[in-house]
């Protein structure tokens, strides 16, 4: 009788047996994005480095801190800048929330990029996960777009000129460039309507798109299983060509599907462990570590806020956010090549990648020797871009002239 209320919420009590633990995972809307049982191999922290998980945690942190900031932020100049000042100096804990939002955003860009590198270096985009790689690339672009739109909101000099440079790069796109810039700015110059447009994009449109794509991304990981599990599973004898002994895992479509099961993670039940507690425990640990790191960063380092935006005075040098400084360095040589051609081709190459690299070899292992060529090309490109970013961030001073950061 006493347990009636909690039982009406949680069908399974605090689970004590493996059967109940599976039931707890399966019967919960939030937990059932995990399989009830997961491959031992993919739980090794050195396989995924939990980068996808960290990116999701950061997104949750960004959503919560962002919602809190919205309660004080006024999306109209010059009040926008004033409300930023309030958040920093008047609102209790405002500065911590703002710092956390800013540093999480920077961290998310970095983590999503590293996650993509991990997926490439382990060959995890190969069949049947081609489309999930495409979704991942779109998520990277969304992350950058969210960061870019958020960059204007403080309405300080840093924001104004970074967005001036950024939207002028968009204007270099052939044919549609000028219209695109006009649409983004809602006019010819950055003004109140631009701020409102960026605000709505940043707070509603892009986060909604992000939630949808993250759901799709995780759903597909769940359906396809994590890469590498197959490669590391204990061999199981085939009963007949293509037919494996019945597993504990069934799909419920036996009448329609000839396959023994739809989701192939491990071929042998001994290769799997229960998600509760093995996976949940690790996720909790990672979440705690991320929160500790974010708090430490937010209490130590202040998010920059320069003087109020002044369209008549360009700071020297005017720099885009750090993750676009590689592009800005390229743009310094040629706006069309660096700002439009190179990024467009890179994105198209990334989107098409799983469809022209169709070999199945070397999936699920770090730096598989069979993938030496692909890995070399990707690594070279990643290093090239990282170098440009470092140059743009540290080695460029007034008039974009070369400076030594230690001088």
């Amino acid at each position: 009788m006493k347990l009636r209320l909690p039982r009406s919420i949680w069908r399974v009590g605090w689970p004590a047996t493996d059967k109940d633990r599976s039931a707890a995972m399966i019967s919960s809307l939030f937990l059932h994005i995990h399989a009830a049982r997961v491959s031992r191999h993919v739980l090794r922290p050195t396989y995924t480095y939990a980068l996808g998980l960290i990116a999701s945690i950061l997104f949750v942190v960004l959503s919560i801190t962002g919602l809190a900031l919205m309660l004080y932020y006024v999306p109209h100049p010059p009040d926008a800048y004033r409300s930023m000042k309030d958040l920093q100096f008047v609102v209790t804990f405002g500065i911590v929330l703002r710092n956390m939002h800013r540093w999480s955003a920077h961290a998310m860009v970095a983590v999503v990029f590293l996650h993509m590198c991990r997926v490439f270096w382990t060959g995890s985009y190969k069949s049947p996960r081609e489309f999930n790689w495409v979704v991942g690339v779109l998520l990277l672009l969304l992350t950058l777009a969210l960061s870019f739109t958020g960059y204007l909101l403080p309405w300080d000099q840093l924001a104004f000129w970074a967005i001036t440079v950024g939207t002028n790069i968009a204007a270099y796109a052939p044919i549609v460039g000028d219209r695109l810039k006009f649409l983004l700015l809602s006019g010819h110059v950055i003004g109140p309507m631009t701020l409102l447009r960026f605000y709505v994009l940043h707070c509603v449109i892009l986060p909604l798109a992000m939630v949808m794509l993250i759901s799709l991304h995780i759903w597909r990981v769940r359906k396809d299983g994590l890469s590498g599990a197959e490669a590391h599973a204990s061999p199981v004898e085939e009963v007949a060509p293509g037919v494996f002994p019945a597993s504990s895992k069934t799909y419920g479509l036996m009448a329609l599907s000839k396959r023994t099961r739809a989701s192939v993670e491990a071929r042998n039940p001994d290769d799997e462990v229960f998600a509760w507690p093995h996976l949940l425990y690790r996720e909790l640990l990672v979440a705690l570590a991320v929160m500790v790191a974010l708090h430490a960063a937010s209490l130590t380092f202040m998010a920059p806020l320069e003087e109020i935006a002044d369209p008549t005075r360009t700071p020297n040098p005017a720099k885009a956010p750090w993750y676009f400084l590689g592009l800005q360095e390229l743009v310094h040589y040629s706006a069309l090549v660096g700002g439009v051609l190179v990024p467009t081709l890179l994105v198209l190459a990334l989107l098409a990648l799983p469809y022209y690299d169709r070999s199945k070899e070397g999936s699920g292992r770090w730096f598989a020797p069979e993938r030496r060529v692909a890995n070399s090309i990707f690594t070279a490109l990643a290093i090239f871009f990282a170098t440009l970013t470092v140059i743009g961030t540290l080695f460029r001073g007034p008039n974009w002239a070369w400076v030594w950061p230690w001088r």
Partner: protein
Amino acid sequence: MNTDPTPPDMMRRRLFAAGCFGIGAATAGFLAATLRFLVPNVLYEPSRRFDVGAPSDFAPGSVTFLAERQLYVFNSVDGFYCISSVCTHLGCNVKRGGAGFECPCHGSRFDDNGQVVDGPAPKPLPWYALSLTPRKQLVVDLDQSVTPTFRLRA
């Protein structure tokens, strides 16, 4: 006896398909119209045509920077002309320096006429038409570009 080659079922199916297609097309049209919604019809921006003061406000031989308007106004021996301070590369404000103008963002340099000397700027700085109102005020029209031969006698 029914000799119609199209059985009534197929008729119904075709009608249904045509209906779906029609509604789909209408929806697509509506979405396209909604895209037009994103383009503002009224811009609450500073006017693109404005007066900058009387010719006598500009000393002979001087170069005046109008920060608010992002313009350099020259009062030369041959007459008045004005050059935009908005860099054609990525929209930063160029400053007087060296032999002409310098951009702080990516290091583009322009000569006194706004022609590109060095750096990534793809085009010279734009020149805009100057005119005089009946009350003898200098008026700049940002929608009217002119060549570097332009001079206004005033």
